């Protein structure tokens, strides 16, 4: 491939205090699947936002088809044939698929014509999707298809995909890859952002690796090993968490036919979940987002009350108890959303330490808060979990995502709970921080805590869990020993065999 579709030369973009992209150059040819690889904070997002017209680079030049290219906004980028599928979807739950697609168009055709076109495109590229369905009822994979079809209707020359597989089951990933290969065969270039190395090796022609805003190497991902790429990405050798398999103790947490409606509209109700977690055991609960993870965490943390017998701690019925009573009994939880749920954004780290630590750390006496004790607790969390912040008097909002995640996980771990429930413990956290968090979780289990890890990152779950169960449409599969489980078996557990078929099976 000698011709070039898009060329970036010396792109630099600085934010106050950090250089997001420093002198980045790369070239993409038509029909090429180009991987952009790097840790969180390596500058991948800033780079594609520059291409998509969302940020203006400070210096450097872009050329599209040999012409200078400097999109003022995403509209200009789309007009030039560049489209993007974001990691977080911008869809309206209450509208149908076709209505959502129409909302993204400059001059939408009548809904009936549009529906027909959506059907055509979804057939052509093997993306099963019914244009009349309400988006709120769709799975994450199906929602992503809406976004992709939205892009394909514009006949793009370049399709940018930001971490597209993070919300998909392995089978859905296969469907997506089929689609992307078809696009490639038609000459559409794809810029594929990911940190999942095996995927990149399976799909991409070229990989550009970013670290701390700079290009640290190019490679043909089919020719180098995943480990080599990983080490280029982190710039060193990876520390893989390890654990000693502790002897499994008594049953600490029991879920007994746990069923509950979701507190939110378009949420997933929990359906008849039964499982036991023993002292020293890590139960990994995998599943695609929106299958009841949030609801399960609320039912366990106590924010959502259920029938007393549905949740038992050491045999004691606690389903009806509010969060602080459960903490007092030894059950701590760390929700997925760190800013606004696990932590109050405008409160200091000291205040946030008291937020969930007040009960077990004895920070309230006669109704008065022991702020000195809370500050000490916050300082301990900061020290033990290597949280980068000037001090406990800073507000939670001022911390980076990874640092705040270490803080909120550390806050629960340092309360030495008997049962710990975490949802997405390393979401959006860089590799070394993620390793530290996983190690801390496993150390806690080794000391005899029963741990439930809810995560969409299968690699993570398989790495730290003793037993694996899948959450699908609010139901939990029977747990199986994690060791020896193949990725195909996991995929089948996750998908529950629903909407797995490719529209045109070509086998």
């Amino acid at each position: 491939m000698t011709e070039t579709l898009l060329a970036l030369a010396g792109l630099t973009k600085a934010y106050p205090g950090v250089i997001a992209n420093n002198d980045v150059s790369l070239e993409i040819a038509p029909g090429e699947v180009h991987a952009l690889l790097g840790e969180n904070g390596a500058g991948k997002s800033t780079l594609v936002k520059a291409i998509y017209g969302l940020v203006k680079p400070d210096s450097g030049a872009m050329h599209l088809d040999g012409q200078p290219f400097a999109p003022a906004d995403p509209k200009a980028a789309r007009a030039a044939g560049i489209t993007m599928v974001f990691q977080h979807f911008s869809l309206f739950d209450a509208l149908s698929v076709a209505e959502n697609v129409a909302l993204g168009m400059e001059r939408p055709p009548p809904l009936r014509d549009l529906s027909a076109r959506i059907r055509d495109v979804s057939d052509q590229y093997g993306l099963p999707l019914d244009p009349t369905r309400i988006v709120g009822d769709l799975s994450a994979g199906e929602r992503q298809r809406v976004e992709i079809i939205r892009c394909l209707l514009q006949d793009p020359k370049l399709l940018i995909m930001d971490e597209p597989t993070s919300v998909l089951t392995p089978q859905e990933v296969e469907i997506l890859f089929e689609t992307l290969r078809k696009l490639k065969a038609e000459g559409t270039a794809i810029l594929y952002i990911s940190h999942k190395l095996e995927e990149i090796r399976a799909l991409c022609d070229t990989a550009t690796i970013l670290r701390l805003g700079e290009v640290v190497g190019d490679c043909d991902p089919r020719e180098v090993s995943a480990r080599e790429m990983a080490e280029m990405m982190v710039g060193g050798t990876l520390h893989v968490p390890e654990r000693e398999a502790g002897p499994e103790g008594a049953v600490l947490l029991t879920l007994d036919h746990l069923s509950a409606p979701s507190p939110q509209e378009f949420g997933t109700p929990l359906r008849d979940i039964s499982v036991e977690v023993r002292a020293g055991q890590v139960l990994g609960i995998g599943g695609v987002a929106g299958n009841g993870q949030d609801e399960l965490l609320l039912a366990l943390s106590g924010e959502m009350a259920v029938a007393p017998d549905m949740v038992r701690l050491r045999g004691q019925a606690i389903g009806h108890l509010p969060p602080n009573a459960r903490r007092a009994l030894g059950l701590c939880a760390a929700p997925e959303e760190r800013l606004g749920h696990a932590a109050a954004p405008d409160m200091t780290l000291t205040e946030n330490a008291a937020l969930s630590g007040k009960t077990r750390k004895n920070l309230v006496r006669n109704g008065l808060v022991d702020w000195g004790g809370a500050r000490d607790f916050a300082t301990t969390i900061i020290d033990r979990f290597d949280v980068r912040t000037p001090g406990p008097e800073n507000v939670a909002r001022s911390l980076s995502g990874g640092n705040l995640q270490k803080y909120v996980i550390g806050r629960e771990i340092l309360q030495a709970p008997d049962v710990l429930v975490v949802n997405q413990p390393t979401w959006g956290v860089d590799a070394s921080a993620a390793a530290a968090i996983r190690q801390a979780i496993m150390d806690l289990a080794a000391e005899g805590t029963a741990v439930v890890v809810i995560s969409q990152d299968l690699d993570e779950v398989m790495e730290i869990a003793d037993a694996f169960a899948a959450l699908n449409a609010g139901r939990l599969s029977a747990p199986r020993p994690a060791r020896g489980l193949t990725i195909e078996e996991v995929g089948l557990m996750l998908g529950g065999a629903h909407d797995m078929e490719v529209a045109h099976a070509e086998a």
Partner: protein
Amino acid sequence: MITLERRPQPSRAWSYLSPILAVLITMVVGGLVFAALGKPPVEAIRTIFWDPLFGDFAGYFRPQLLVKAAPLILIATGLSFGFRAGVWNIGAEGQYIMGALFGAGVALAFYPIEARWLIFPLMVVAGTLGGLLWAMIPGVLRVRFGTNEILVSLMLVYVADFLLDAMALGLLRNPEGMGFPGSRNLQQYPSAHNAELIANTGLHWGVIAAFFAVVAAYILLSRHIFGFNVRLAGQSPRAAAFAGVSANRMVLICLGLSGGLAGMAGMFEVAGPAGQVLASFNVGYGFTAIIVAFLGRLHPLGILLAGMLMALTYIGGELAQMNLQLPRSAIQLFQGMLLFFLLAVDVMTNFRIRLGRKGVA
């Protein structure tokens, strides 16, 4: 181009500075309004802010300052908890009226028995309870049926207002009042009279209650877990739920607290400075207290200062009406501007202004 940029941390300096700046801007713009009305602006501002304190008749006005400030501070202190927690009680005026009716009702039921040790404390309790129960109506409706407490509490002000009219003309009317509307004058009933504790200071039991409310609120907010939960519920409802704060309970407690304090203020007013249940009893303290609460940064000490300042504009405003023939509405406009400019200047606490082109930053 001017752009607003979010500060990484809220500015402490600006949160102290903005009330002062708002007062100054209000003086300037208020002066312009007065000038447009054909009144001498500097003299008008001096009449409002200076003369009541240091003018020729200051000896008469200074005690009035405490009398006016006490209900404002008492009500605003209660409201500040709800406002911090995101519970919007706009109906303090109605709760103030109900407190007065309950308090006066108890006193009149005992008339003419002389037993101050029993009757006066009972009036305080009844007045507080009256405001509290009135505030529970929007509270229970919100918790049970999800109604909007802003609308319900506001509408109940008008209900309370009509109830006041009805009481002044009916049930509580003075049987020896020659057919005039209005109850017996509690100032002439020693067991019920909320008299000045020290002559000519304006210091009555309501002032003391306001002072205690400020101190208690300060301790609650800075040291007590309840104050922490209030702030948490207002800033981040989901984090509050995670911390074990029940949203419904928070609504009821905040409405109860603000209603109770407003009712107490109403009771002290009707038993003291006002003296009797009359259709013209309420003069808008319940609404002005909203301005006081925000002007004082929802902070007890700030509310103390803001309450004094607002009381000053009431007294100074009356003075300006008498001396300069300023229309009454001009004074209300003046008070409204204060809140308006405060909210405008407040943007600076969380944002900074950046001059220059966007995109370079």
